[in-house]
């Protein structure tokens, strides 16, 4: 590779010759892509078509595992839980991120650099540590909620009770990602050319008009990216409930989210092929929901 031909005199001014150099450069990626993504998906999809029986060993059952999953109360319970999570947590998080981005962009606050970094900081914290920290603060051993109740005589419910634990998880996820989403949105606002604002000012547009006609349209693609990643994150929810489980074993079941269920099937129930079906199905559902959301956004944009 290092001795690629210096031949080919500069006859053609265009550099984009059609040759194999580019393919050689992209080959390392294709190799790891195949080993790390394509092969596991192909293998797991294949495995999901079989079932292990006590007698007779592994036998082909076609889409049987998928049919089972779609009527499996535990899988469906987890699925509806993450759908609820998606419907509540994601709008709150994106709303907060949007608000923060608009405020930063308005230039009407001091110490912006500190605020930006401070709000973004949780993104650098592993979700395991985030869940551990919040879990301790939630908890009754040396948690803040218990101390607050003790100090003020309030009777705040435990965030780790089965009523509140989903909200408690939502808070951890919001904490982790609000700053990241804020930065995505803020960067989109910063990319608006100054001339646009100047032109709007000359035309006598007020602040509301500027927000409506310039800022919101400029934000739309970034909002979509932020939402897309949040949809994926919701459906794939695993780390936070898994970590909090040891603190709230009564509130968080082993099939609390679909991913936890798949994990439980593979490792504790020893239903490996069914676990593969659940994992593949969940991945497919996630991508379909993300796709549908994208189409809806596009239709909204065309209007």
């Amino acid at each position, binding site marked *: 590779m290092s*001795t690629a031909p210096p031949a080919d005199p*500069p006859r053609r001014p265009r*550099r*984009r*010759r059609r040759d194999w150099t*580019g393919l050689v*450069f*992209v080959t390392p*990626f294709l190799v*790891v*892509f195949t*080993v*790390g*993504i394509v092969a*596991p*998906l192909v293998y*797991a999809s294949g495995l999901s078509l079989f079932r292990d029986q006590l007698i007779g060993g592994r036998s082909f059952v076609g889409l049987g595992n998928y049919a089972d999953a779609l009527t499996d109360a535990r899988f469906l319970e987890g699925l509806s839980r993450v759908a609820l999570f998606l419907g509540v947590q994601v709008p709150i998080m994106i709303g907060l991120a949007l608000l*923060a981005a608009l405020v930063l962009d308005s*230039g009407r*606050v001091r110490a912006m650099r500190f*605020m930006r*970094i401070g*709000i973004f900081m*949780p*993104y650098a*914290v*592993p*979700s*395991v*540590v985030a869940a*551990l920290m*919040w879990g301790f*603060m939630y908890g009754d051993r*040396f948690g*803040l909620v218990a101390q607050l109740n003790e100090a003020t005589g309030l009777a705040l419910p435990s965030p780790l009770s089965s009523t509140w634990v989903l909200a408690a998880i939502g808070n951890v996820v919001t904490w982790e990602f*609000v700053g990241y989403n804020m930065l*995505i949105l*803020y*960067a*989109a606002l*910063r*990319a608006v050319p100054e001339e646009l*604002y100047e032109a709007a000012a000359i035309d006598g547009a007020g602040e509301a008009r500027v927000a409506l006609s310039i800022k919101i349209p400029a934000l739309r*693609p*970034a909002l979509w*990216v932020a939402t897309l990643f949040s949809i994926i994150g919701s459906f*794939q929810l695993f780390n936070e409930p898994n970590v909090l*489980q*040891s*603190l709230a074993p009564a509130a968080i079941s082993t099939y609390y989210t679909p991913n936890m269920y*798949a*994990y439980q099937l593979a*490792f504790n129930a020893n239903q490996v092929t069914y676990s*593969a079906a659940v*994992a*593949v199905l969940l*991945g497919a559902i*996630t*991508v379909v929901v993300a796709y549908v959301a*994208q189409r809806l956004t596009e239709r909204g944009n065309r209007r």
Partner: protein
Amino acid sequence: MRSMSATTEPRPAPAAGTAPPHGGRRTPAPARTGRRRSRRRTSVLLQAAMALMVLYTLLPLYWLAVNATKTNGELFTSNGLWFGSEFALWDNIVTTVTYQDGIYLTWLFNTVLYSVAGAVGATLICALGGYALAKFDFPGKRAVRAVVFGAITIPATALAIPTFLLFAELGIADTRMAIIIPALVSPFGLYLMTVYAADSVPDSLLEAARIDGAGAWTTFWRVAFRLLAPGVATVLLFNLVHTWNNYFLPLIMLSDPALYPLTVGLNQLNSQVTTGANLEPVYNVVLTGSLLAIVPLIVSFLFLQRYWQSGLAAGSVKQ
């Protein structure tokens, strides 16, 4: 799964343009010097709202830092938001790193190994590939773009169990490579590098290098890679954070505690302590271990952020 990649292929192009480090590319200096900003008056209401938000994001980190300085006993008896009577941070650190024959240091070493090997490898692979996709024509290029960029929406967590099943079949599940190999794959990194290379590496420069007789490999390292440096830093940082924070995959893949990264080790220790499986209630080890686990990330974040900004400024001057 082929349909998955096909359906998600038309991804909005502005993604990279709006990702943190790129969005500001055209702004010469850190945000606070924005031109239209100086004219605005500070709003007390907005200031208060932002202060509240920073409080929300920093409070848990403060809580962790404060409580990592307490002895096990004082964790339960002192105010959670203030220091105890004894400042035991150093003792806690010593206890943490010597606990169970220094298992924490083993976990730390594993985390560093996995993240550095994974992130450096992934970033080089993405830089090469992105440069190729942006600057070369080659047979099959359109197919490569469609499949790889379509794979961006396949979540890493959805791949964890399939990857484990395959690696278990191949007999490499409980090894270090089982964590490093998946960390080398970053479709989003490739996407960012492609967009970045298209913007920041001028064709004329590559043409000049070619006329000077430089081969494709030399040109990449001597010319393109330097121009790509800010993008490389970005992709490196994101991959580093991703692997450092990875939990699901190592949790599934590894059964030997000597191979655990910090995330898996810390959580296992915590659940042993919480459920009473571990007879010593070493909450101080869990807390101090958590604190030590995030310090390098936060420091490298701040450090690399400066690096970005200088890169961003240089990029804007060139335009």
